């Protein structure tokens, strides 16, 4: 279970509070969606969960399976099963995608005390997952994300997620920049990863992604805190009414 209690975060370099007491519980086996307008703090929450520098936690706590997430370095979090699918995946020049995947998988396996995959096992696993996401062999040879289209980058995030096998998946605006076909492929990839051992937090601005990745709970975030929570029908309501009510309240 992911448990976020009264989380307060400000930018490290300025006196600007972004998260104003976020409280949220995502049990294993569930998919939760966070929706909210731009500037509501959604992406900050995602980054803080993954451990990006530049933020200062001024109060509250985050635990995953009872362990203090905020005390861990980003790579330790990954080893504990935390995975962030980036809104803007980073280009890594000179590092072939396959090399990157292999290095990452071996690193988390080592930390988890599991056996590293043999080369054939690794290749088989990557190729299978890549094929189901429509990622070509040629792309796997290229430097990670360099020159990839927006859709290719997002599919690559899901491929990494599938290969690394995390237990807490945070997807930050995975739908942004995707056309309808790419969204279908990406959503199918995510849906395939749903399991009773895995919690998912899907952050999105628009309701449309939730037609494909059906959430168990929907939370509305505005002004740096959760304003309202409900079932999947809440997403449809928001689609009609917009966020105005919440931005005023915040």
């Amino acid at each position, binding site marked *: 279970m992911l448990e976020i209690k009264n989380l307060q975060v400000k930018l490290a370099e300025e006196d600007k509070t972004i998260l104003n007491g976020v409280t949220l519980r995502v049990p294993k086996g569930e998919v939760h969606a966070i929706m909210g307008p731009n500037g509501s703090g959604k992406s900050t929450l995602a980054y803080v969960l993954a451990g990006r520098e530049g933020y200062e936690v001024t109060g509250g706590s985050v635990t995953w399976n009872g362990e203090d997430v905020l005390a861990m370095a980003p790579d330790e979090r990954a080893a504990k099963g935390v995975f962030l699918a980036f809104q803007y995946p980073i280009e890594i020049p000179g590092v072939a995608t396959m090399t990157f995947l292999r*290095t990452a998988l071996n690193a988390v396996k080592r930390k988890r005390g599991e056996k590293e995959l043999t080369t054939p096992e690794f290749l088989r696993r990557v190729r299978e997952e890549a094929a189901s996401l429509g990622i070509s062999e040629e792309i796997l040879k290229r430097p990670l994300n360099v020159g990839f289209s927006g859709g290719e980058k997002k599919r690559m995030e899901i491929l990494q997620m599938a290969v*690394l096998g995390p237990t807490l998946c945070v997807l930050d605006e995975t739908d942004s920049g995707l056309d309808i076909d790419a969204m279908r492929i990406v959503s199918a990839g995510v849906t395939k990863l749903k399991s009773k051992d895995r919690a998912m937090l899907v952050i999105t601005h628009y309701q449309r992604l939730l037609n494909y990745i059906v959430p168990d709970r929907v939370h509305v975030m505005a002004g740096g805190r959760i304003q309202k929570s409900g079932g999947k029908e809440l997403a449809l309501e928001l689609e009609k009414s917009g966020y105005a009510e919440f931005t005023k309240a915040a």
Partner: protein
Amino acid sequence: MTVAAPKTKAEQALTRNFEAVAARLPGGRAVADARKAAIGAFAALGLPHRRIEEWKYTDLRVALKEALPPAVGAPAQVTVAEIDAALGALAGLDAHRVVFVDGLHAPQLSSAAGLDEVTIQPLAAALAGPADRTGTGLFGEGAARQEAVVALNTAFMTDGAVVGIDERAKPAKPLLLIFVRAGAEGRLVTTRNVLKLAAGARATIIEAHVSLAGAGPAQANTLTEVTLADGAHLAHAKVTLAGEAASHLGTAMVTLGAEAIYWSFQLTAGTQLTRNTTFVDFRGEDAKLDVSGLFLGRGSEHIDTTLVVDHAVPACESRELFKGVLADRARGVFQGKVIVRPGAQKSDGKQMAQALMLSPDAEFDSKPELEIYADDVVCGHGSTAAELDEDMMFYMRARGIPPEEARELLIEGFIGEALDKIEDEAVREAFAAIAKGRLAQLSG
């Protein structure tokens, strides 16, 4: 009016040292005269300093505090095993070797005798013969360059490789020219090579400048003249691992005939002071130049790469890509001059120099200089100096990669683009292994 600066201690010593050893330097009367003229030219020029534009960032008057005595006479005894240890990953390369120990040819360590279509002669022997058969530019254009470092090379050169590749010959194995610093005493070591490829010849020649464990300080001055006839193709790689107590002044003078291809790669690491100057003159149309390299600096190392590419004729192409990784207080310098002469239409020049700064005290000075006098040309240049990207580091760590491993992967990725320019797989792997080993020594 120019006022002559007072001679530095090193400048005075260089002239004095020349007088002391001149009689023991190889060559007949004509060579001796050329040497005298050269030391005279040097005396007038002095060591290059920061007020000379080409030496703005590498002031030899400051850097060379003293002149070491020239290495002449019998060199130290060296074994193949010692050389292999100094060569590192390059030792395993299947190549014909020509070895020079402290500036003198060591035939017992060499393995390039009796090759078909390739002639190799030690420079000392060539200089002792008739002047017109040395094949060096000693008496012609090479001597004409107003360069103090070139003049010093002419004055003091003791030996080197004079290599000729016959018309359309394509030797199967690379030629590995090994220059070893061996003796325990500090020495000035001066070598000159002459590489001539006849029309349509194709070869790979690698220069390795290394230092044995326990070798004394070195001031190396090495010059390689490269002449490619029409349609010749030379891959010329150079690795300089001269040691913490070494300065290395390297000059390459390259002239390219029509449709010739000159490919070059320079790897420099673990050398206190390095200046590699490459002059390239296009003499025939449709020739191609591709020069790239990698420099890795730590401590107070100083690595200067200077290129002067002269598009004197139309339709030639030049490509330059240099990458550096600088730690501690290391300083990298890149000067890329490209001249496109009037009438040299359809010239195509591209230049890129990038440094990765691992320390806030490291410095990278990059100076592109494009002098374009023709109107139908494509010329571009770029330069960057940056630290390891924090976003990339975070992204990799978010995927579970520990920081040291992420850093290593990013640096390898950065230099990989340069190493990928090496076409020959065995050479590329050897250079990559050397670079990787040296990178591990750079502190963050």
